[in-house]
């Protein structure tokens, strides 16, 4: 039995499930709003929510897509009993998650949320080329028009703020100095790119796509400012073998076996930008005929 940890509304999960159904593989899908109770029956451990109930030893493989396993935790009246029981419940939950993560898996709940700053350091250790970066609360050290800023968060959207439309924080070039200090922000050297590369990584295999975003003013700095009228051309691409090997080394060091990795090609250099473990890959999968949804279903 395959365990899929995802969200109720998640298109990529649906597309993988389409393949699992075709392959006649059985699966359990857990939503983001499910809370489980840990129980036992005849010395076997099972977990139960309003939607699902399954024995842990039934699970043969796991795909951590989004959300995660969450547990109901009981609160006790007496503070000292509560402290003890809190720890008791913590270790049971920890045991369930560790047991599940020890099975064949695609990503793990415990390592899937990555720190962009930490990853850049690890990428440098893996000998990948990384554009110079720094954190600052002012623009004193910023070289205008040659520096970009972008969020360090996984979620780059601002939705439902008053009457504003749903919005996104794109990578942007700093064109003027700021008169006032601001909250610590991330700055990085702007690389003049030939094109961008998005590589999908799955258990050591790398499927790359070149995104020709440089010739369009709208997508030049951030290709996610999609030009819907005249979309960027996306074509299959092979990274040099040494860049692929360094990428594998990086992913192993991060304990992540699936994710989308962004590169910029500039001259003969391939600059590493970031890893996204929960990114959307259906677009490049379709355009380049990679059938990544099938690859995931095959692996599970």
């Amino acid at each position: 039995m395959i365990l899929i940890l995802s969200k109720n509304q998640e298109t990529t999960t649906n597309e993988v499930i389409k393949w699992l159904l075709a392959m006649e593989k059985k699966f359990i899908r857990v939503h983001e709003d499910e809370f489980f109770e840990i129980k036992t029956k005849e010395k076997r451990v099972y977990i139960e929510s309003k939607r699902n109930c399954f024995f842990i030893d039934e699970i043969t493989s796991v795909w951590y897509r989004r959300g995660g396993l969450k547990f109901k935790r009981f609160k006790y009246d007496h503070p000292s009993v509560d402290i003890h029981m809190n720890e008791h419940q913590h270790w049971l939950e920890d045991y369930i998650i560790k047991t599940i993560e020890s099975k064949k898996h695609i990503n793990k709940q415990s390592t899937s949320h990555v720190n962009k700053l930490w990853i850049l350091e690890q990428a440098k250790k893996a000998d990948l080329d990384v554009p110079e970066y720094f954190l600052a609360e002012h623009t004193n050290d910023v070289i205008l028009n040659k520096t970009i800023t972008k969020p360090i968060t996984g979620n780059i959207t601002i939705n439902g703020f008053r009457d504003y439309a749903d919005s996104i924080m794109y990578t942007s070039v700093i064109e003027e100095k700021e008169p006032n200090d601001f909250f610590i922000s991330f700055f990085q050297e702007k690389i003049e790119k030939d094109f961008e590369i998005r590589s999908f990584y799955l258990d050591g295999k790398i499927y790359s796509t070149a995104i020709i975003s440089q010739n369009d003013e709208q997508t030049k700095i951030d290709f996610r400012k999609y030009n819907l009228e005249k979309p960027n051309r996306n074509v299959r691409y092979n990274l040099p073998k040494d860049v692929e090997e360094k990428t594998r080394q990086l992913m192993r060091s991060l304990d992540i076996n699936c994710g989308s990795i962004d590169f910029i090609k500039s001259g003969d250099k391939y600059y590493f930008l970031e890893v996204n473990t929960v990114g959307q890959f259906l677009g490049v999968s379709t355009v380049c005929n990679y059938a990544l949804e099938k690859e995931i279903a095959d692996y599970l």
Partner: protein
Amino acid sequence: MRYQIEEKYKLPLTFKFVDEYRAKKSNENTEETAYVKCEKYQTDFLMQVKPHKALVRML
């Protein structure tokens, strides 16, 4: 800064570069997405996905 956000504490510079990616909250979003509840897929939000490529291109 497109957003006029008044917060007690400072915000990162990225807030200066927030840009719209969906239609405004008003009635401008006319494109409705239809979802169906589907037991087989274990979701309440199965959406009909339009193929990116025309069938003739796949033949």
